[in-house]
């Protein structure tokens, strides 16, 4: 069993990456092979609208024809048993890099048809992990709940069973005194990091464990 995690954050050791590491630890604890890929290390673009993936009888039908650093990653995901994409929320959505990745992954499989709805050759259980500075009680006001639900819906349709994990009100900096950031209370942020973030890490660990032994759960 192989689980691939994609880090859509530019930071390789901060909240999103930590949660992904925990998820992979959970999977590894069940004996799974794991891999963490940092999207920001790769040179690639989003969907280039060539529509080769939609061309009847074409050799790229159901596959992304764009060749760049993302190409081998997309191939490995198709061979994997599960995947998790992690991204911080930047100005109301996942990072542009995570978005470009998702376009390439999803659009190639998605059909403009109801039969079949996807050309993905098998079900790939998928986790979406979001980290955000926004506190949980503002998520609905910001419309993030609907955004998360629609991402889950499309992944579920195209790739396979999808679940979502959110980590709210995250710590942005090690030392708030160095930054112009009056709207945040450094002590409250630190307390939440100590008390709540470990629970989010546990949830990520459990997600990884579930993906590694789907039948038992």
């Amino acid at each position, binding site marked *: 069993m192989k689980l691939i995690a994609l880090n859509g954050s*530019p930071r390789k050791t901060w909240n999103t990456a930590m949660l992904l590491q925990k998820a992979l630890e959970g999977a590894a604890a069940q004996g799974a092979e794991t891999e963490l890929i940092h999207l920001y290390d790769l040179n690639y673009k*989003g969907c280039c609208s060539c529509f080769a993936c939609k061309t009847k009888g074409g050799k790229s039908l159901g596959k992304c024809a764009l060749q760049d650093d993302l190409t081998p990653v997309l191939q490995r995901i198709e061979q994997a048993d599960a995947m998790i994409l992690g991204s911080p929320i930047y*100005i109301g959505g996942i990072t542009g*890099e995570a978005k470009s990745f998702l376009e390439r992954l999803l659009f190639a499989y998605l059909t403009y048809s109801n039969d079949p709805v996807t050309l993905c050759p098998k079900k790939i259980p998928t986790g979406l992990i979001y980290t955000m500075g926004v506190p949980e009680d503002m998520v609905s006001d910001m419309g993030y709940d609907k955004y998360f639900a629609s991402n889950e819906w499309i992944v579920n349709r195209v790739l396979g069973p999808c679940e979502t994990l959110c980590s709210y009100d995250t710590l942005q900096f090690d030392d708030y005194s160095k930054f*112009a950031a009056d709207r945040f209370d450094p002590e409250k942020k630190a307390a939440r990091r100590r008390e709540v973030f470990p629970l989010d890490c546990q949830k990520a660990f459990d997600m990884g464990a579930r993906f590694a032994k789907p039948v038992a759960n």
Partner: protein
Amino acid sequence: MKVIAVNGSPRKTWNTATLLQKALEGAASQGAETELIHLYDLNFKGCGSCFGCKTKGGNSYGRCAMRDELTPLLQRIEKENCAVILGSPMYFGGVTGEMKSLMERLLFPYLVYSNPPASCCPRKIQTGLIYTMNCPEAFIQQVNYDRYFSQNEGMMARILGACESLYSYDTLQFEDYSKMVADWMDPQKKMQRHREVFPQDCQKAFDMGVRFAQAV
């Protein structure tokens, strides 16, 4: 006076690019200098979360500290007396990843984490957002696009100064639908809409360009 249009679509001659060209024609008709930049031609990433733009006393405070092919564009938008129009198709419920990456780099440095949040953008920039989408207008609320559009417009207005949006719905995706697996779409209806409604969208884009040239 200048109007800069940024094409966030990978296609350089299709719906988004056509609307941006029309907007620039409108601006040029008022004597404005115009420029069209294809984002997919540039090698750049989204915000690197270095927080150089938020570091007290740092030499990048209020500016993006990343250096790549997007840097000159960001600098020109800040310094030149220009209006800016961002155009993007809607992919999976949002602007393209490339356009999102640009918006992060353009907006986040000016966003001040004060209470309430403020902007440190050194000048008021007139901006426009042009969206193209396969989605028909009747489904916009159902798929929450209305909320997405108003949030983007509000954020652009608060951080850069002023923003208006233009939407082109139910667009033509391919020249020849018979070559594609796309039985959801009715090629004749798509073509008819492209003939009858898209020219009106082009006129709206032209008018936006005229207004922006007059405002700069």
